[in-house]
């Protein structure tokens, strides 16, 4: 059998476990643990006058009730601002439990620990919190007016303001270029809130044995949670372990950390000397975790007769909710990734990131890119319509040419590094997507429209990831990396990489992620980075192991290492398969022994023939064992790209919108596993269709989230998602040894832009807001008729 598995559609190895209920998610652990529950603010903005816990004290099973006042100084501090930025002049974060003021519905106020969750919720229901309601700030318009303030000490509700400018080649700024352009357009775009909505909510389970703390968290970064917990609770790092068990989806919300519960649950476990667990319920997830997307964009664009963009000026108002624990990454990503596959003459982008009395905004799959692509692709469509040109033609004249890489966009990306695209082939991709969807053959008729959207996605941001690879004396290969998995298929793709690099059957490779006991140094899983970062680190670690294996085998076989190959777990002299030694034996020989615990181990003991009497058993500079560790730290991000196209049909009577076809051409460099990449794309497209046609967070003027359940927050079902047709283009990244780019977020990024493009084509109505529902399409039609009647 072949051991060359890189690039093959290997079936997901984790699926039999996950699909047959053998997964071990957070709430599957800690059966006997005490349960935590939280009293959460029912007000969007209020001052806490008093908390009376007395009525709850008689609840059977009650163990403890904590308010902010009960927390030690270190534990009660404001949560960290994870990513500071000079433009974030007024960053604010929450306290683990509300201190004096609550700033959104759902903010935790009181923690209850009880024998089970039922008792804990009974106690929560009896605790009386006396609130003095304050004026809530809801929505971008209200926030910008600044009449009421979310934080008393943040004037105008402005957390951050950042202007980035790229001058034209002749040094003129965007404003000047647009003024002088042959054609100009200006318009406003609106994108509403949505959220990651993993099927499994957040959750924390902690055990304290008097010396060591073990924390399980449904997180996207166990290493960073570990450091935060150790620092906050004042524990030495070696005494804290954090493990991400099976995690039922993250999509960004679980990269935020430490969540209040990630501090409070371990602290309660230590304080009470008991195991404590908290598993978030869906209502809590809606009102207490994080949302994303909401932006208003004002666009001015100047272009020539061919549709070439000469200057682009975008002003973004970004709603970051009540707090900024994740800094201003989302609007920074919007600002920079807006440029897409295009060469824009002069560019000015300014964003104002404002506070509202709503759930905080942190990255959700796509992380600001869906808004960016919506902006740029709407712009391209409007230019095409203005000039009477085909929409793909306008895009093509603006593309960066395949010969122009590396291409410097002269901006600073979210990793603090220059925005330089490493590779890509946009004209070829456009040709492929047009062919896949049948763009030129598309039959145009009312009620049937075709749309397109293009994007470039910076993936694989640093700073680093690591991999550890160990071959044990049974011939098994144990791979571990510190970043976490939320269902992506890491157990499969990392095993494919290791099997290919080491020449072993994939069945012998096991993969562990997100367990700080196995690998302590990591950043986390986000920004489409796991394959790029850990994939390359694991490949590098495997190469170290391979080199050592060949050296040891060469000794044993009395051959030159350069003449050796590894296939199917056997090291052999190339061209002479009989001169061979199993990798398992090499692993035995790599670890000189005094005691033979079995027959195989005897080969490594002091009186065996293989031990050379003239050298130390472990040579200088060597380590015992057949294992290796390495890290991958890229100079900057690698840039994946894609183009999507869709055909939609709109019902002339009911205004229902149906996606009839959906096609994706995607370039994530070399593919490790095309089946997994396609799965990532399918899931992303499904989330994108959710954002385009179904999902929104509806806040009323009091700051109540009125659709905080799966009944009214319309996450699409499988029945709403069309078959997704895919084709791959592979332009390898020159930045990493495997030539790969990230794929995790790709599917979701351009969907709103594509659907808007297609609906606009079907209806002949400007579609400048997303999502769009049948009711809203009906209103747009009515408005058009009204306008026509007035003219």
């Amino acid at each position, binding site marked *: 059998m072949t051991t060359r598995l890189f690039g093959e559609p290997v079936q997901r190895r984790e699926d039999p476990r996950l699909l047959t209920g053998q997964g071990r998610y957070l709430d599957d652990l800690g059966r006997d643990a005490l349960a935590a529950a939280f009293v959460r603010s029912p007000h969007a903005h209020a001052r806490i006058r008093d908390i009376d816990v007395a009525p709850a004290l008689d609840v059977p099973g009650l163990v403890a009730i904590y308010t902010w006042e009960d927390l030690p100084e270190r534990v009660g501090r404001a949560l960290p601002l994870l990513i500071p930025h000079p433009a974030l002049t007024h960053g604010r974060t929450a306290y683990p439990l509300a201190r004096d003021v609550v700033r959104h519905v759902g903010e935790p106020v009181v923690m209850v620990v009880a024998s089970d969750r039922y008792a804990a*919720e009974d106690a929560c229901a009896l605790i009386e919190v006396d609130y003095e309601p304050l004026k809530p700030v809801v929505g971008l318009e209200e926030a910008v007016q600044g009449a009421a303030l979310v934080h008393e000490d943040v004037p105008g509700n402005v957390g951050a303001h950042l202007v980035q400018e790229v001058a034209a080649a002749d040094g003129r700024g965007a404003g000047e270029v647009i003024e002088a352009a042959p054609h100009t357009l200006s318009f406003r775009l609106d994108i509403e809130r949505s959220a990651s909505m993993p099927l499994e909510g957040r959750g924390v389970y902690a055990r304290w044995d008097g010396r060591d703390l073990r924390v399980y968290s449904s997180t996207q970064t166990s290493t960073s949670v570990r450091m935060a917990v150790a620092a906050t609770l004042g524990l030495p790092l070696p005494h804290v372990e954090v493990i991400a068990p099976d995690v039922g989806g993250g999509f960004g919300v679980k990269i935020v950390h430490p969540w209040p519960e990630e501090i409070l649950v371990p602290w309660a476990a230590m304080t009470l000397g008991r195991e404590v667990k908290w598993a978030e319920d869906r209502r809590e997830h809606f009102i207490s975790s994080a949302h994303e997307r909401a932006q208003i964009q004002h666009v001015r664009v100047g272009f020539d007769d061919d549709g070439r963009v000469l200057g682009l000026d975008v002003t973004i108002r970004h709603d970051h909710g009540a707090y900024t624990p994740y800094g201003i990454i989302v609007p920074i990503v919007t600002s920079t990734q807006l440029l897409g596959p295009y060469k824009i003459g002069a560019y000015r982008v300014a964003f104002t990131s404002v506070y509202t009395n709503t759930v905080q905004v942190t990255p959700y799959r796509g992380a600001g890119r869906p808004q960016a692509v919506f902006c740029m692709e709407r712009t391209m469509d409007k230019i095409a319509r203005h000039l009477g040109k085909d929409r793909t033609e306008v895009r093509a004249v603006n593309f960066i040419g395949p010969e122009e890489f590396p291409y410097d966009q002269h901006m600073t990306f979210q990793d603090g590094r220059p925005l330089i695209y490493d590779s890509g082939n946009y004209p070829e991709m456009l040709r492929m997507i047009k062919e896949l969807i049948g763009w030129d053959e598309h039959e145009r008729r009312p009620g049937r429209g075709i749309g397109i959207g293009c994007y470039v996605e910076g993936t694989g941001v640093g700073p680093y990831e690591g991999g550890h690879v160990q071959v044990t004396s049974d011939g098994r290969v144990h791979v571990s990396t510190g970043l976490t998995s939320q269902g992506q298929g890491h157990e499969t793709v990392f095993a494919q990489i290791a099997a290919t690099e080491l020449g072993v059957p994939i069945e012998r490779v096991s993969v562990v992620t997100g367990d700080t006991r196995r690998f302590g140094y990591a950043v986390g899983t986000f920004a489409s980075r796991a394959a790029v970062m850990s994939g390359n680190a694991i490949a590098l670690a495997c190469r170290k192991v391979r080199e050592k294996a060949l050296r040891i085998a060469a000794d044993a076989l009395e051959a030159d290492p350069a003449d050796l190959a590894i296939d199917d777990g056997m090291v052999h002299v190339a061209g002479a398969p009989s001169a061979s030694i199993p990798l398992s034996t090499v692993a035995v020989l790599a670890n000189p022994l005094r005691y033979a615990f079995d027959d195989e181990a005897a080969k490594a003991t002091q009186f065996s023939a293989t031990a050379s009497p003239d050298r130390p058993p472990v040579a200088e500079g060597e380590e015992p064992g057949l294992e290796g560790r390495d890290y991958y730290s890229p100079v900057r991000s690698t840039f994946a790209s894609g183009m999507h196209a869709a055909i939609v049909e709109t019902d002339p009577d*009911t205004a229902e919108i149906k996606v009839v076809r959906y096609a994706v051409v995607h370039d994530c460099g070399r593919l490790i596993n095309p089946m997994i990449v396609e799965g990532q794309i399918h899931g992303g497209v499904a989330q994108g269709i959710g954002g385009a046609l179904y999902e929104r967070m509806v806040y009323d003027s009091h700051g109540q989230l009125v659709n905080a359940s799966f009944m009214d927050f319309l996450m699409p079902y499988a029945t709403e998602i069309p078959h997704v047709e895919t084709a791959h283009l592979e332009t390898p990244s020159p930045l990493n040894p495997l030539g790969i780019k990230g794929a995790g977020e790709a599917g979701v990024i351009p969907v709103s832009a594509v659907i808007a493009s297609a609906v606009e084509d079907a209806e002949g109505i400007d579609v400048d807001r997303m999502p769009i*529902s*049948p*009711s809203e399409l009906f209103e747009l039609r*009515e408005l058009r008729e009204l306008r026509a009647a007035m003219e």
Partner: protein
Amino acid sequence: MKPPPFAYHAPRDVGAALRTLAQVRGKVLAGGQSLIPLMNMRLAAPEHLVDINRIGSLSAIDATPAGVRVGALVRHSDAEHAGAHPLLTRALKLVAHPAIRNRGTVVGSLVHADPAAELPAVLAVLDGTVRLARWDGRAVEREVPAREFFVGPLESAVEPGELAVSAFFPALAPRTGTAFEEVARRHGDYALAGVCAVVTVDGDARVTAARVACVGVGPVPVVVDVTGACGGVDVPGASGGADVTGAFGEVDMTGASGSAAGGWAEAARAVQEETEPESDVHASAAYRRHLVGVLAERALRNAAREGAAARGA
């Protein structure tokens, strides 16, 4: 999302259930597809839960020429697969998803009286009844017609201490067709608006009776008799021929004569005027009003066509 404490009763026959309900302020648990989420969200906090799932006698579906009687424990999926009543079967396919239909009950849905639900509209358009029982030294029953049963949003005529033991869906008259047209945001969701229609034609395929009930556009199912508007209308396509369906599955009635189209449209306008739609997070009142007109016309046309096709039967 855990319910507050409650006492749990699991009677094994109707008499025991009624005696329990007479003694305690209890909520009846049948399929639990609405009650349990309400309890988990602490929006409902009954002190007593009377679980009727062990009462086998309530699982009967009795079909007679007069109609079909559905017991309080008949699951949506049982009724759907029994195919005992064409309009009920049609409506049940629109109720939520298979997992919910496997557990939820027909009578439970009626008692829950959600104005956006399909089954109350079916009972209302058919002039069906719900049989209620209570304990007064012995089991006492009363039969409540649909028009009196649905009192308001999530409010039915079931009094404290009463148990809805069955519902009766009257059989269709000869040469009668039905349709249920709705628009939901996602497959299986409560409809933004929906219309079910029952249309009877004579031997010449002319409409003799037409009645609709609308969901999602009023506090209770909105029943409108539109015989006046479309009575006497010739049903187009009655001579047979395959349905032409567009992308959205609606029947293409391009063959409709001018007068017939006028009759349907007039009927649809009459239906619209009877509705009181409201705006919510999913749709505006104006859209719902528009929608109910579109759906009424579609439902009436499709029901009429089915009635005409049934002439030979």
